[in-house]
């Protein structure tokens, strides 16, 4: 029994430490530009570097393991490099690419690393279908899943990233598309800084501190994302700081401490989104007059909107706490919806007040607000609130068969009754 145990332990130990004979770096060194370097299954320890246009292609079971604190794979000063179907691990960064024109990373598994992919001063980069799983611990001790610094024409799509600091970190990038990614359990799902012409589409951000953190960015389009469960003390579904020109459309924003927050931003359009069960749906401070939330659905939120004195526009949204009527039958409430709340304004100044949000005194205060604020004309007022999420005008229809049947039954009843009293 003891021998069997030792034998099993021997194989278990050896399976973790045996390294394949194939020399990866030598194969890279001898490959001609444009060629494919096929790396057979096996675990290869080292710090590898690519400086020419080649494809590194692994197969199931191909794993590169970085040594010491150096990156597992470096790609430098080259063009048209593809890395695919490989597992990477190491203490620090898995992949570092610098000054590369044309880079494709696909079907990679990156695990137990400080930082997944770090790209700088590169353009025409396509990262897709990679999985990054960070190390255990607090996000302040980790790096980012995919980070791009100073780049142009970048596409990041279909990736799954978890347990890192920022899932996707973008800094000083021109023209980037981030789509169909799933980021969970990090600090920020996607973090844009100093970026222009950006799109984030069909992504899922769940249980990070903040789903989308957008700072000092110009011209960004956020559409069809699911941003949910960001309910920490400092959590936001989306936070826009010093952003110029943004369109936020068709997103599902639910169960966040604050759904969308805008600070020091201008020309933000928030359209046709579903805000569900957020503590506060939209918050705006120091935003420009042209910032507008229109045709959104607000359901189950504790506070619909809060702002500083500048406010922002609310136009034709649906609010589940609106109590007006529609005598004109056009789907629009006859009296304005006023979102101003004294408590909401206090919460902007002192976020710690959020812990009293559903207390009896706050509920009473909000009820009083709703009575008093009916005279509010400008700030956080929607003059055309929708009465239903989807308004459909029902035309009066006549069912002839039903009508004739009803008439027949009525006349029959009358005849039977008359006959009964005359007999």
């Amino acid at each position, binding site marked *: 029994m003891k021998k069997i145990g030792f034998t099993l332990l021997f194989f278990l130990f050896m399976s973790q430490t045996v390294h394949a004979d194939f020399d990866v770096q030598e194969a890279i060194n001898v490959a001609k530009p444009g060629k494919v370097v096929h790396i057979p299954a096996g675990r290869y320890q080292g710090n590898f570097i690519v400086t020419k246009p080649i494809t590194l292609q692994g197969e199931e079971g191909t794993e590169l393991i970085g040594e010491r604190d150096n990156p597992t794979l470096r790609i430098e000063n080259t063009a048209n490099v593809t890395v695919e179907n490989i597992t990477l691990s190491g203490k620090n960064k898995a992949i570092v690419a610098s000054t590369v024109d044309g880079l494709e990373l696909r079907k990679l598994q990156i695990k137990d690393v400080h930082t997944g992919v770090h790209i700088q001063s590169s353009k025409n980069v396509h990262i897709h279908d990679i999985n990054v799983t960070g190390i255990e611990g*607090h*996000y*302040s001790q980790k790096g980012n899943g995919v980070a791009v610094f100073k780049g142009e024409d970048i596409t990041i799509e279909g990736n799954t990233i978890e347990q890192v*600091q920022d899932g996707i970190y973008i*800094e*000083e990038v021109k023209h980037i598309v981030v789509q169909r990614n799933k980021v969970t359990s990090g*600090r920020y799902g996607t973090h844009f*800084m*100093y970026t222009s012409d950006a799109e984030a589409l069909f992504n899922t951000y769940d249980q990070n*501190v903040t789903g989308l*953190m957008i*700072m*000092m960015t110009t011209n960004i389009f956020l559409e069809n994302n699911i941003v949910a469960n960001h309910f920490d*003390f*400092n959590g*936001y579904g989306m*936070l826009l*700081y*010093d952003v110029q020109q943004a369109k936020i459309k068709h997103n599902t924003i639910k169960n966040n401490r604050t759904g969308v*927050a805008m*600070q020091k931003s201008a020309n933000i359009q928030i359209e046709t989104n579903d805000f569900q069960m957020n503590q506060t749906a939209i918050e705006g401070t120091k935003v420009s007059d042209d910032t507008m939330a229109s045709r959104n659905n607000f359901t189950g939120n504790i506070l619909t909107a809060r702002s500083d004195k500048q406010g922002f526009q609310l136009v034709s949204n649906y609010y589940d706490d609106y109590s007006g009527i529609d005598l004109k039958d056009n789907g629009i409430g006859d009296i304005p919806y006023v979102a101003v709340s004294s408590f909401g304004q206090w919460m902007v100044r002192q976020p710690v007040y959020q812990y009293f949000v559903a207390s009896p005194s706050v509920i009473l205060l909000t009820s009083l607000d709703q009575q008093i604020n009916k005279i509010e004309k400008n700030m956080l007022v929607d003059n055309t609130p929708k009465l239903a999420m989807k308004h459909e005008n029902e035309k009066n229809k006549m069912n002839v068969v039903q009508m004739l049947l009803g008439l027949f039954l009525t006349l029959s009843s009358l005849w039977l009754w008359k006959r009964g009293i005359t007999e």
Partner: protein
Amino acid sequence: MKKWIMIVMLCCGVLMGCSEKTYEPRDIISETDVCKICNMSIVHNAYAGQIALKNGDYEIFDDIGCLMEYIKANGEDEIGAAYIKDAAKNEWIDVFKAVYVYNKDYWTPMNYGVVALDSKEAAQEWMTTEGEGQLLAYKDLHDFKWGIHK
């Protein structure tokens, strides 16, 4: 005699009570601390700043640029003390006495490229390893154009 000693001790106590209040820096708590200006959580402690207000409150910042934006908006009257992390030693130093070095390629959380050090010698040493930069004093930060520079 005892009565006089008591009076002297009482006076000393009153005078000590009236002496200038000290404002010590507090530790950064990465789980909950966010920058007062930009809302970023503080994960790069080597660049963090803080202001101890005279009312006992603390305001935390992720970058010297955000700290200066706060001072610009609120003035210095209510500030008891202001601290910034020494980029080389990761220790709190006085914002008003620190020596600053600017280089557009130095990375900081807001990418403003300004780091703080405790002396000119330390700044020179910093530049020998991290690249040449422009030396600045606290007064220069008021007119500094915060943002990324091409």
